[in-house]
């Protein structure tokens, strides 16, 4: 069973990476770009057949390791 997880910075938290990437893209002539924010992405495969259980496990992983809940939010999707 496979899940994707995206981890993004909370709304009011500074995103230095996104800022530099945005400036660079604008300098490269992408002038319609309004904003870009950078985050992390994980593809997780589990040996599990029970979706509810599996999802709970992924949720656990996010809380324990993948996301820093102080500054980040995360989202889990089954793929």
């Amino acid at each position: 069973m496979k899940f994707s997880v995206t981890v993004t910075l909370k709304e009011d938290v500074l995103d230095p990476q996104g800022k530099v990437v945005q400036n660079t893209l604008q300098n490269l002539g992408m002038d319609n770009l309004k904003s870009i924010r950078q985050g992390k992405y994980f593809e997780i495969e589990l040996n599990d057949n029970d979706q509810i259980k599996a999802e709970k496990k992924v949720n656990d992983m996010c809380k324990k390791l993948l996301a820093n809940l102080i500054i980040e939010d995360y989202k889990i999707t089954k793929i």
Partner: protein
Amino acid sequence: MNSSVIVFPGSNCDRDIAVALEKLQFKNKMVWHKETKLPKSDLIVIPGGFSYGDYLRSGAIAGKSLIVNEVIKAANNGCLVLGICNGFQILTETGLLKGVLLRNKNLKFINKDVNIKVINNDTKFSNKYKKDQVLKINIAHNEGNYFTNFNHLKELNNENLIAFKYCNKNGDTNKEANPNGSLENIAGIFNTKKNILGMMPHPERMVDNLISNTDGINLFSSLLK
């Protein structure tokens, strides 16, 4: 010899390399990344640092700067180009050197003196070294884990394009002597024409016995011939 050091906003070894070059009597100029022309140079150096904070991928954004187009042109015309640390990463991002520098296998920044072995001393950059000579040189990077595809690796070996490999004191290039997980302990490579050298270790930090040692000097003096 005329040298030019490219300065990105987050370069931080630019002064260090300039000091080393001037110590060896290069006529050196600093070139700001927003410039569109290079001064006349026999050697272009892309120094270490965090060109744009190393955000996104190390070297990626610098690879898109204005001056880089000029560096590519000059390199294609045979000008000597040396990329150290972040400079190596930038050279791979521009495509002047093949392969990539991934994160160190322990996922930590590593700063220490390591031993490297001179693999090919028959180039403009390395002729003052002996073949298989073991040097002690400082490394300082987060992404120095060199990776490339199978065919290119074969080419590197067959064409003698590997400049340096990490090794131990005795010159053994074993796994224990590999600080960052680099493929075949690679610490530096040349392009096919051998006018471009990218390396993770910092030769400019090894030109003064009071601070470290002088194992880096021959790299610069090789170029003077």
